[in-house]
């Protein structure tokens, strides 16, 4: 019985010891454990798998994926960061730039501005195509000139009063439809996601007149194309008290963990510690610094329970990003299946 429990722990938990982490790798492959049937079974997977959405805000999504392996969860995370396409400024045609910001620095900053344009409506640009067509390019114009304000008070030193247009914001970028884009996208409103991104500062007489081409790309090519502010996951913490912990030790134990994890209850006049909500813990391992407590607690993580946190830059809502990421992984598999079939045909 104890041996079975020990193997179950090895299979299900990643244990955080004082000086290292044990049972990191997935070992439940067929043949590794006698008495366990580990061959892939789609039905068993479907029964055990579930997704729980915890929190959804405008641009953030927190959800749990339970019953899946690290390799696949990590694949989704990698795809969210680097392979879900978006539109971003790629080419900047500088007609006039007398500002103090150099052309290339200005172009770099413009590229990093997130553009509210659904990338699914556009195609990738063909390689070697310098001009761009209406199906793969979005054109934006930024034309702004700074002037002195004749009405400003003589002694004022506040630039907001002295000058017009001295701060160039992303709201000054205007969409210039190419070809038949006005017919293709009649209600579309292509603009940067945020209006208040400061691009450059000007003084009277300086002006910026640039034309920008946005293309579709992926984060692997340049980080400006990444659709997420960040996408990460952590494993569900699992804290077990190996022995009952009482009185002073219970109070110390509560302080060793993040607030809300350990609850001290009053049972029969004695203070007893209980694990209330292990999910909140960030595993600082403070408990290992206390000689009296370090052998009474087992810190572990549940191997197949992933708490995902996806934060979008605003181009696409986070749940759309996750769906797209899953479809991209399916697309990769399909590509190789097609290759196999075409080779088999020959």
């Amino acid at each position, binding site marked *: 019985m104890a041996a079975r429990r020990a193997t179950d722990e090895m299979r299900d938990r990643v244990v955080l010891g004082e000086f290292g982490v044990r049972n990191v790798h*997935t070992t439940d*492959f*067929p*043949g590794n454990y006698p008495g366990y049937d*580990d*061959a*892939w079974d*789609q039905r068993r*997977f*479907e029964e055990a*798998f*579930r*997704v*729980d*959405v915890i929190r*959804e805000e405008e641009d953030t999504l927190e*959800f749990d*994926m339970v019953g*899946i*392996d690290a*390799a*696949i969860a*990590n*694949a989704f995370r*990698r*795809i969210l960061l680097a*392979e879900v*396409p978006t539109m971003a400024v790629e080419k900047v045609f500088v007609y006039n730039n007398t500002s103090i910001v150099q052309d290339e620095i200005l172009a770099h900053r413009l590229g990093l501005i997130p553009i509210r344009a659904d990338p699914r409506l556009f195609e*990738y*640009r063909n*390689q070697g195509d310098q001009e761009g067509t209406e199906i793969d390019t979005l054109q934006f114009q930024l034309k702004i000139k700074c002037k002195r304000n004749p009405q400003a008070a003589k002694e004022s030193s506040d630039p907001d009063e002295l000058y017009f247009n001295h701060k160039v914001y992303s709201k000054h970028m205007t969409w210039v439809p190419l070809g038949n884009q006005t017919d293709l996208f009649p209600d579309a409103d292509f603009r940067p996601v945020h209006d208040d991104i400061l691009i450059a500062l000007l003084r009277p007489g300086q002006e910026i007149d640039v034309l920008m081409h946005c293309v*579709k*790309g*992926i984060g*692997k*090519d340049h980080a400006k194309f990444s659709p997420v502010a960040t996408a990460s996951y952590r494993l569900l913490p699992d804290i077990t008290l190996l022995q009952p912990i009482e009185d002073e030790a219970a109070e110390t134990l509560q302080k060793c963990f993040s607030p809300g994890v350990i609850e001290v209850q009053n049972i029969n006049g004695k203070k007893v510690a209980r694990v209330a909500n292990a999910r909140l813990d960030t595993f600082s391992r403070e408990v290992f610094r206390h000689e009296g407590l370090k052998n009474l607690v087992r810190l572990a993580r549940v191997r197949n329970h992933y708490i995902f946190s996806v934060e979008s830059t605003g181009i696409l809502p986070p*749940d759309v990003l*996750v*769906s797209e990421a*899953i*479809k991209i*992984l*399916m697309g*990769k*598999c*399909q*590509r*190789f*299946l097609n*290759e*196999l079939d075409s*080779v088999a045909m020959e």
Partner: protein
Amino acid sequence: MAGSGSGPALETIQADGTDGNCVTFVLHDEDHTLGNSLRYMVMKNPDVEFCGYCITHPSESKINFRIQTRGALPAVEPFRKGLNDLMGVCQHVLNTFERSMKEFRAQKEEEMQ
């Protein structure tokens, strides 16, 4: 840029003297994203004796994916099965995720009212 790919996306290398049950697949334009998840699915196949992948050089985006099978089963079979199983997993994850999102939003609607 995405969408570029000249040449075959998949090559197979077979050592002399073996009869198709240990093959190295060279997958172009791939990395750990597909490599590790596909390795996991192929390892779950009890007919596979060995499965591993490596990235030959970090400057080249290709992986060597090796499968050795038990007995006389051609190595292409577990590879194909692994790809199909991975597609099945993704499809189920997609359906479950979209269903959970719908339920969560419906529940929030109820709470608002």
